[in-house]
């Protein structure tokens, strides 16, 4: 291990980590929005849209992100939809994550019994009030463990971005190994940076889970 080399590489890795985080959080944000919309459509059985979201969820849950990215990045330009690498990365992550989040939120909504909604309505609440104050808080606290697991999963999946030539951590490591043969140092920094990104998320996730475990109804 050569510390001079590590110091020299550090700025490159920092830049790459920023890119990973930037695309990662945009992707996850859109994944949550998309997943929430799909879950509501599924739960309230909106005709036609329900079948479409079903197909989407099954398609993207059962294919790897790498294949999705290749299709979006190399395939879509051929039918007149050129996508830049940044957009492609975020879009791929959002589409993959959306399908996972949809399942998570849907099972959360399903876990809240219908009697909750009915009771709220019979107390004179509007549908939106019942949703906002009764159903969603319970559904969200039920889906939190799966939700945080999804976030960690999606952050880990960003490691395949290097395949579409985004200069993320993987790309930097591979590039440096190829250029200078400093394998140990490059890999060491790679591990350290992924730890810096993922360890806080993982710890935060377990803290949130512990706090929300008491929020469920009746137990």
């Amino acid at each position, binding site marked *: 291990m050569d510390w001079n080399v590590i110091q020299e590489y550090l700025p490159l890795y920092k830049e790459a980590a920023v890119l990973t985080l930037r695309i990662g959080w945009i992707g996850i944000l859109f994944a949550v929005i998309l997943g929430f919309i799909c879950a509501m459509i599924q739960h309230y059985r909106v005709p036609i849209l329900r079948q479409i979201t079903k197909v989407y969820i099954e398609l993207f849950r059962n294919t790897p992100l790498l294949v999705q990215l290749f299709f979006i990045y190399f395939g879509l330009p051929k039918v007149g939809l050129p996508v830049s690498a940044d957009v492609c990365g975020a879009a791929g992550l959002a589409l993959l994550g959306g399908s996972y989040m949809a399942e998570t939120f849907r099972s959360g909504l399903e876990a809240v019994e219908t009697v909750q909604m009915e009771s709220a309505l019979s107390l004179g609440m509007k549908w939106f009030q019942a949703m906002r104050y009764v159903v969603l808080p319970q559904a969200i606290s039920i889906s939190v463990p799966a939700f945080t697991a999804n976030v960690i999963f999606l952050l880990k999946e960003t490691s395949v971005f290097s395949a579409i030539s985004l200069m993320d951590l993987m790309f930097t490591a591979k590039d440096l190994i190829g250029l200078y043969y400093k*394998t140990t140092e490059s890999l060491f920094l790679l591990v350290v940076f992924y730890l810096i990104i993922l360890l806080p998320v993982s710890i935060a996730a377990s803290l949130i889970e512990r706090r929300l475990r008491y929020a469920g109804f009746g137990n």
Partner: protein
Amino acid sequence: MQDLGISVLFKGINMQRLLLGLWAALRISLISVLISIPLGILTGIVMTLRNPVTKVLTRVYLEIVRIMPQMVLLFIVFFGVTRVFGINLPAELSSIIVFSFWGTAEMGDLVRGALISIPKHQYESAAALAMSKAQIYLYIIIPQTLRRLVPLSINLITRMIKTTSLVMMIGVVEVLKVAQQIIEANRKTSPNAAFGIFAVVFLLYFTACWPISLLSRYLEKKWS
């Protein structure tokens, strides 16, 4: 624009090559699954022990696997081991090592979850009937655990298959690599083949994983 690669697909033995590529990826995941299921069951049992040493060790192992992207593990084994120990690991072998390492931890966690979901009185009643530790596991705990475990571990297989697409990044020739080769070889005659070929790869993965997910969901519903 008119030709999106469907003709390329049926040219020569291109379709067979793609399927062989898919098989190369599936083979890696199947071997890794076969290795990680028995090892994972052992790990899971070790995780439930009250020994503080094993508790810390398995915890650290699980966290490493949870936090490190599989791709990083692949790089460490494929590039790092070669460098540090001077052993030349073939890409396929290193991916099997990594996916077994990963699968064992995941499987171990599933086994642990299934084991601790069995109420304590099951163990105690069995012990009260003078069963030995081995008998308790064999006749009481394992049959109940399996029902919870089987759907989840089937689900793990689909995750394994999806993750093996990463092996392309360390140079294993699998379905994505073959797809790239086919596209490159036909660049002149049908420049738009990328759309069709990658769409086919997408659907190939889907047809490999979807039936397995359906089976897992069906079993989960049936046995819960």
